[in-house]
């Protein structure tokens, strides 16, 4: 059940990042979870939904979990295999000498926030 500690850290990051752009509310947050991190999505979402209520900024946040698939680079032929299975072998040459180059991510990838007007006028770099 490391989902609980991970959810705590996710809510902390979301609240911190939201506060840093002077958000009044974080509407949505996307979390990218690598296949190798052995995280149960439903379990994580359950923990997030409990913990988010502790902070008015995250109270109504809708969390989305995206799975990052396993990516393996073959040391023999260089081919990159992307798989939803736990098969550590090259799909082209069948070699088991592979480096894991994806599937170990665990990050808060992006937020959707509602900000107040003052912040937008002072901090937006006018890109939009």
């Amino acid at each position, binding site marked *: 059940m490391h989902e609980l500690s991970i959810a705590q850290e996710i809510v902390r990051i979301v609240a911190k*990042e939201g506060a840093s752009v002077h958000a009044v509310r974080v509407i949505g947050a996307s979390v990218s979870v690598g296949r*190798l991190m052995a995280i149960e999505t439903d379990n994580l979402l359950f923990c997030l939904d409990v913990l988010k209520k502790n902070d008015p900024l995250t109270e109504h946040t809708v969390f989305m979990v995206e799975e990052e698939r396993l990516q393996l680079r073959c040391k023999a032929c260089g081919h990159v295999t992307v798989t939803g299975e736990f098969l550590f*072998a090259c799909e082209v040459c069948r070699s088991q000498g592979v480096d894991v180059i994806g599937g170990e991510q*665990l*990050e808060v990838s*992006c937020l959707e*926030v509602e900000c*107040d007007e003052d912040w937008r006028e002072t901090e937006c770099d*006018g890109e939009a």
Partner: protein
Amino acid sequence: MKIGVKQSVMAKLDVKQSVMAKLDVKQSVMAKIDVKQSVMAKIDVKQSVMEANNELAAKLRAHWAERRALTLNMISSPGSGKTALLEKTLLRLRDRLKIGILVGDVQTENDAKRLAVYGSPVKQIITSGTCHLEAHMIEKHLPFVEQGDLDVLIIENVGNLICPSSYDLGEDFKVVLLSTTEGEDKPLKYPGIFRRAQVAMITKIDLLPYTDFDLDLAERNIRSIHNETDILALSSRTGEGFDRWLDWLQQRVQEKRSLGAAEKGPEFS
């Protein structure tokens, strides 16, 4: 951090202002809609959830690099024989190596008591429910076992094959244990830890005659997850296969000692 604000040049009025402005109903509704669109922003955060743990683990690693202390993180299901392995290891090596031990369990000091009789510095980490050790727990308890210079620090993680695999503790090697009563397909069921561990140890081989455990199949399963893993098979009860483990350990200690001068690492006290 990049901030993309969609339609940021929209209405300047916020809800309160629009009410204050005494606009007619229709206009103020419009203003509200505009406001809502104008203040929504999508923010790229790309922040690692493990960052706090990983930063501290990196500090611990630098600390042990300076001291040339080999550090192992032992991971298995409850009851695979981690503590028994450490008892026998201390018994056999206590005259040759200075070994410190941090042992994590959800409750009780039992394992620390079992290990303390060999005269090595041992500290129990009681996690009170948490199913794995994190770097900050190591940082907190480290000073209890690090009096003087250690050749080896062994961390016995909480019995669990899933959660501990995601937490870097700054160790040199993750060692995963699998006992002969657990079935050969454990590596396939828990690929995360078997992929990350550099050493896999099949324990309790004295029980092989009483089980249908297929040692070759277990090794093939481990290799199918990680073909470069060092595989050792042993019994802490009879001592069979133990010499190879002690050789492996002492060789790694030598390698760590012979590394070039390390930069000054952070202190923990």
